[in-house]
């Protein structure tokens, strides 16, 4: 058989990636063909050379420090976020109690309830006068949601939620 037919298998033979039958065929050919034996030998040495030369590639002296520094930055960012979330959670949990015990807050709550009720009752009339207002409310809400999502995404860029909640 022509040596060229063996060549791709010689490369796989060097890597021990042939089936037992193929391996025997190539081995037999290598015993008889000095040119292919040389090719196998070259491939072997090429691999050793390749590994040896990658292994001595100089690494920038500042690399470890810069990695540690960016990790510290990341850690600080995470801690900051966790602090925010903890603060907001506590505020949300504590606010009903504060509202219950604060006359000013109760008054404000009552006022907002009355105001909201009045707006709610006036809504059909308002919509008749300015039919565009519903569209404006919808657009405003959508914009607010988009801005909110963008803000949260910016805040949590590169950080998964489970890290923040952990």
């Amino acid at each position, binding site marked *: 058989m022509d040596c060229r037919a063996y060549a791709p298998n010689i490369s*796989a033979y060097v*890597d021990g990636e042939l089936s037992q039958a193929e391996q025997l065929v190539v081995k037999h050919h290598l015993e008889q063909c000095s040119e292919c034996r040389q090719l196998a030998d070259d*491939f072997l040495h*090429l691999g050793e050379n*390749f590994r040896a030369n990658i292994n001595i*590639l*100089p*690494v920038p002296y500042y690399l470890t420090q810069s*990695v540690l520094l960016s*990790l510290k930055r990341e850690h600080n960012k995470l801690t900051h976020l966790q602090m925010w979330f903890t603060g907001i959670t506590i505020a949300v949990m504590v606010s009903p109690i504060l509202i219950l015990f604060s006359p000013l807050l109760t008054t404000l709550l009552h006022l907002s309830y009355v105001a909201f009720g009045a707006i709610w009752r006036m809504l059909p009339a308002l919509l008749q006068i300015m039919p565009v207002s519903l569209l404006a409310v919808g657009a405003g809400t959508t914009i607010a949601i988009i801005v909110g999502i963008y803000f949260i995404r910016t805040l949590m860029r590169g950080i998964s939620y489970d890290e923040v909640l952990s």
Partner: protein
Amino acid sequence: MIDNLADIVEKVRSGDATAFTTLVNGYSGYVYRTAFALMHNPQDAEDIVQEAFLKVYRSIGQLQESYAFHTWLTRLVTNLCLDRLKKHTPTPVAEISYSASSRDITPDWDQHLMVIEAVKQLNIEHREVLVMREWQGYDYKEIAAMLKIPLGTVKSRIYAARLHLKQILNNSGYIKE
């Protein structure tokens, strides 16, 4: 790289900052060399190192077995490099310049540069299979799975890459026939 790796990884998982520094010290060289071999661009290699350790920091908790860290990290770095290679062609770097201090480490830097330059001349497809096989020690099946190509293609690509590298080194006078 690190003698008691499993212990160190276990400590890192429990949040030990000193252990993490040991891990970075022990592995940053390996990660950089792997990334450089694949990307052939010092800046890209540095970025990969940063990205890789950031991922390690974030997801080391997902690692099932501490002793599997090396394999896990190797795969992580390879995937980062392959993703980056897919996204953009690395910025060409004219010359690889080494500082005077680093030159003292090994005796034959001309030959070293010749090999590195030869690897650089390989196309990305050849370079990635060669690095994955020769440097990272993946077998053909693993390479096929990671690159999402048939096993036969891996075999022929590795063969072609070796032949091409041999040819470049022959032409540069590195291998004397």
